[in-house]
């Protein structure tokens, strides 16, 4: 179980090691299967949310953008992508403030997208350590 921690992680800092360790501990004997399943779901959902984010950004749609970012936040936090989750809260807050179109695209959106890509890559790497090819 611990070999995951020892494996080289190409995106150190993207996935919070404490959250990850807790997840592994909580899942018990079925850890590998469940984690692989979670990662699969996360990659699938995040890919979809990133497309929606790009679309909403292009269409200058603050409501749609806020919704997509909100949806991305919680699962990211659940799997330890805390930096990404914080960025989601930050950008969503700006979008829900006054005059969201005053500064478009919103500040830190690019950073958020880049961090999301990093989180996906990091989780994908972890997924391959958990026995299932994602």
């Amino acid at each position: 179980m611990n070999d995951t921690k020892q494996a080289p992680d190409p995106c150190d800092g993207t996935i919070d090691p404490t959250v990850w360790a807790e997840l592994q501990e909580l899942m018990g004997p079925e850890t590998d299967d469940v984690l692989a399943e979670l990662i699969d779901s996360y990659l699938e959902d995040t890919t979809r949310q990133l497309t929606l984010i790009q679309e909403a950004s292009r269409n200058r749609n603050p409501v749609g953008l806020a919704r997509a970012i909100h949806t991305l936040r919680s699962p990211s936090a659940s799997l330890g992508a805390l930096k990404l989750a914080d960025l989601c809260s930050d950008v969503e807050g700006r979008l829900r403030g006054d005059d969201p179109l005053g500064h478009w695209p919103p500040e830190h959106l690019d950073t958020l997208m880049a961090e999301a890509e990093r989180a996906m890559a990091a989780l994908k790497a972890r997924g391959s350590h958990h026995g299932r090819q994602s």
Partner: protein
Amino acid sequence: MDARADPQPSILLIDDDRIHARILRAQLERGGFHVEVAASGGEGLALARRRPPEVILCDWIMEGIDGIELCHSVKQDERLANVYFILLTSLSEVHDRVVGLDSGADDFLTKPVVAEELLARVRAGLRMHEMNERMVRLAKELQRKQDDLERELNEAAAYVRGLLPRPLKGNVQVDSLFLPGQQLGGDCLDYRWIDADHLMFYVLDVSGHGIAATLPSLSLLHRLRSITPGDQLVHPEQLLAELNHDYPMAEQGGRYFTLWLGIYQRSSRQLRYATAGHPPGLLISVNGQQPIRRLSSQGMAIGLFEDAVFHSCSCRVDPGSSLLLFTDGIYENPHERGGSLSLDTFIESLPWREVQFSEHGLEKVLSTARKSMGMQLFGDDVSLLRVRFME
């Protein structure tokens, strides 16, 4: 009573964040619970209705039907009202918890959820659910027994009524009215010509209520029906002494009874009567100075004391007189609500002309008493017996 002793306590988890739902499910399954997962409020409600779970864990903020709305629907549904409902929330404002509680939520769990707390709260929820279920089972059982008892009492009341005599016509007319109380009060009455010259009539009231009071009263009815012409017709007090000997309280489950018994001899116009702790009989004469005379002889209730002494009295009955016998249910109310009348007030308020002259005199007595006591139902049995001496 560890909830986990149940092989499959079932938890319904409703969360539209499938990553979060999967993590919670894994934690709950590790805790030994059977978990069903619904990805939306609508799906969750349908699942719950199809197979009611013991505990629902539901995210507050969801697209479509949110946690509050779902909680409300669950608590409104009779079959699901006992499900223990835990709302998952990242909101911790007091106001939001008030909204949650008002919608019927039983507990809250703040996100991010800590596994130990999750399992502890679910276990607490299962205990509450089990307790509620037990209460519901007990309440149902109680209701069923109450219904059984009521049915049995109604059947017993119908049985007693079936044993009561038909009105007597002729020169001496007798009629009666028996109104069983809500619990049956152990009243009984009877009248018959023992021979061509002697009419026997009585009203009795066994202490206590229910079937247990009715059985002795039926036994007395049969005993008194077996009387044949003899000395007792002249000495009703001897009959009372015999009953006192044969029905000691100790052998009757602690029950005793009061009795008013009269024997009227047609040829001599003499009424001889003996009473045992019973309210007086009321003799109403047409032209007397005292329209209502109270007939009572000394004597304790039957069954109380082994060596009790009974007496009898006699009086001449004028043509056109009427005699009214009754049990205390007509003026005493055993329940708190509605006032009891004193015997004096009851006698003063008696519609005595109707008692004497009307075909429906006894119904009139009943309705007058009901009005004076200010209530619709009598708590105790009410028995009335009227003898009209026409000749």
